[in-house]
């Protein structure tokens, strides 16, 4: 399944709860303020790197660009555009937007 997280890891525990429940082979897509978790040097970096070992982790490029942090992308996280976002929702039979 596909987990979609749109909240900053510093503002809520959404990402943490999602990662506790996500199973190996699931995908995680970071969008909106959720993309800050995919930046190097942040306190969330090690948690996301750990997640990359068992999940496919994606971040929406438009949201990274908007926030000026695309160059800080953690390697192991894959950038997607809006079409890629749609493809992911089609690829996985279940999606959960963690609001």
């Amino acid at each position: 399944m596909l987990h979609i997280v749109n909240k900053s890891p510093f503002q809520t525990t959404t990402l943490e709860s999602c990662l506790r429940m996500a199973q190996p082979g699931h995908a995680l897509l970071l969008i909106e303020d959720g993309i800050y978790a995919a930046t190097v040097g942040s306190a969330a970096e090690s948690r996301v790197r750990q997640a990359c070992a068992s999940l496919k982790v994606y971040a929406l490029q438009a949201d990274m660009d908007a926030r000026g942090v695309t160059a800080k992308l953690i390697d192991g996280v894959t950038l997607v555009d809006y079409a890629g976002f749609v493809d992911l929702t089609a690829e996985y039979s279940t999606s959960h937007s963690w609001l």
Partner: protein
Amino acid sequence: MSEQQATTPSGPTVKKFMFVNRKAPYGTIYALESLEVVLITATFDQDVSLVFIDDGVYELVKGQQTKGIGIKNFSPSYRALDGYDVEKLYVDQASLEQRGLTEKDLLVPVEVLDAQQMGQLMAQQDVILSF
């Protein structure tokens, strides 16, 4: 209210206003709304300070390109604050560090304060508005 409010010779009372910014830009409307109120306040010749704490530090990150999300990039406005005599910008050091950011990542000159300095600065204000 402060017992020592400065006044201009003939004009109205000048109060110390602090705007506390704690949200990332674009994900919510808070950052933009704060900036709007800051500009209005400055128009009334008030003593304005902006502080950036927690995700608020992301408001000042250089290189924001918002074309892809269809939202106006308001970050250049922080550079214009100088023109409204809003020159007191303070950033919380721990918030920067927790996010892997340094002053070099920011688009305007700021003063980086530790928590104690930030707390003391807050205590000196007449009005504190939180966004």
